[in-house]
């Protein structure tokens, strides 16, 4: 009975010591992480000059695609606000008289799918042209007015411009119906192309950042070759040897991401005033939108991730080659 009890007690003690050992291991693993992180940071800061250079290179490489994509977002916002007032220009037959044109305008104005129809009278248009261009004599010498009457039709909201265009073209005095949308489409295509270009550029630069970081870590490994050998000789595992270099990569990447966020912020700050001046010229209250706090944090995180990846590549390529001889 007593033997049984003491056996149980022993087992319990065994379990608790193994748990204690596990806790110890966890604690020391954590300790080594914070030790490596602090030590790597100290080394990075000790070589502030070259570290700053690395940070700048990474920061610029990351800021470039970010800034371009911010610019594109802003451009899309601007073009989006232009998207809706698509206008259909109806050029009437030359033979159409002023009364017929006015009648058509009134008729169009009545339609549910038309928001507004404005008549540009051909006589008034020619006079205006003569006045604005200064070709008064030339215009006066013309036998007849070469301009047709023009109706500018704005579709009601929700009406597909191309459908309305087809309907209006079927009307009797209409010779031509042109949707002033081609340029919006062209702009959209251009934006799509730019977005792809920016994505491609971002891909190339991200690869560049990983390679730069990998090379920096390779140099760090080379510099600490003796130390790595000694640590391996006294029983340091690969994970143990790897850890400080992964942290070095992390610090370079995080610093680079931080610089990138700063650069983008600085550029936006620099452009904000001129852009809002320009916008006010166009009676727009358009405001540049930046990357915000979340975007900046994402940049820093992305930098850290790239740093880790670069370091991991360098470490797995070069650490294995360093064996005690």
């Amino acid at each position, binding site marked *: 009975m007593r033997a049984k009890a003491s056996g149980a007690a022993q087992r319990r003690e065994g379990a608790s010591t193994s748990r204690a050992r596990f806790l*110890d*291991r966890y*604690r*020391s*693993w954590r*300790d*080594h992480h914070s*030790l490596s992180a602090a030590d790597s940071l100290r080394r990075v800061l000790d070589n502030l000059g070259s570290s700053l250079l690395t940070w700048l290179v990474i920061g610029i490489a990351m800021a470039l695609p970010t800034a371009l994509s911010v610019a594109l977002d802003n451009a899309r916002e601007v073009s989006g606000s232009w998207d809706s007032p698509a206008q259909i220009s109806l050029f009437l037959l030359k033979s159409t008289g002023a009364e017929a044109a006015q009648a058509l305008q009134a008729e169009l104005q009545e339609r549910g799918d038309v928001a507004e129809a404005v008549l540009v009278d051909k006589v008034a248009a020619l006079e205006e042209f003569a006045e604005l261009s200064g070709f008064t004599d030339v215009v006066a010498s013309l036998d007849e007015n070469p301009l047709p009457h023009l109706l500018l039709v704005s579709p009601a909201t929700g009406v597909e411009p191309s459908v309305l265009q087809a309907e209006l073209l079927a009307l009797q005095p209409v010779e031509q119906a042109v949707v002033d949308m081609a340029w919006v489409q062209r702009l959209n295509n251009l934006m799509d192309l730019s977005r792809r270009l920016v994505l491609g550029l971002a891909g190339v630069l991200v690869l560049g950042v990983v390679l730069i970081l990998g090379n920096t870590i390779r140099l760090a490994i080379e510099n600490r070759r*003796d*130390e790595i*050998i*000694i*640590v*391996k*000789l*006294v*029983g*340091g*595992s*690969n994970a*143990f040897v790897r850890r400080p270099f992964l942290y070095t990569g992390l610090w370079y990447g995080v610093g680079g991401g931080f610089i990138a966020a700063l650069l983008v912020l600085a550029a936006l700050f620099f452009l904000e005033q001129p852009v809002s001046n320009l916008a006010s010229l166009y009676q727009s209250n358009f405001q540049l939108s930046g990357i915000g706090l979340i975007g900046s944090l994402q940049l820093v995180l992305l930098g850290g991730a790239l740093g880790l990846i670069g370091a991991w590549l360098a470490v797995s390529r070069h650490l294995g080659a360093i064996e*005690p*001889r």
Partner: protein
Amino acid sequence: MISFERVTKRYEEGHDALREVSVDIARDELVFLTGHSGAGKSTLLRLIMLMDRPTRGKVIVDGQDLAKVSSRGIPRHRRNIGVVFQNHKLLFDRTVFDNVALPLIIAGYDHREVARRTRAALDKVGLLSRERALPITLSGGEQQRVGIARAVVARPRILLADEPTGNLDPALSAEIMQLFEAFNQVGVTVLIASHDLALISRMQHRILTLRDGRLLGAAS
């Protein structure tokens, strides 16, 4: 504890550093390894700690056939062995304390235990007062003692020493040898490569002699 079965080590250049070496070292033994320069002493120690693998033959340490230890298993194997290197192999940008503490940090002791054991080891080699010094500011003999402290700090089951008294004066050499004997008395298997025949023949331990990679008769 350590046994060699007809071990041959041939380096790439075709030079045989060890030829057909067979020897058994028991758990409670302290054994000296001697021989001329280039006889293969360091090579034998390197095989035990898996810095190299034998070309032929079998090395068994603590019941484990080393041929079966994969490269992933090498760190764990080395943690059971304390080594004093012929050329110290200290970290010159770390303090004496940090150098000696390294095996404990690798083994994952918590920092209070690390400090306690490191100071105890430094005290044993008489360098406690220099714990904050950088190794470069120490004499050759002091550096050697830092290496010894590092080798014993994690209380390994096996202690290998390659010329541990090479830079020490006779009095200090004798003291260090006594230190190794003390470790041996608490159950550590000790193998010491040394040229210092005068010193080691005075001590009552087995002496292995290598000549051109061959083991001559073992005397006790």
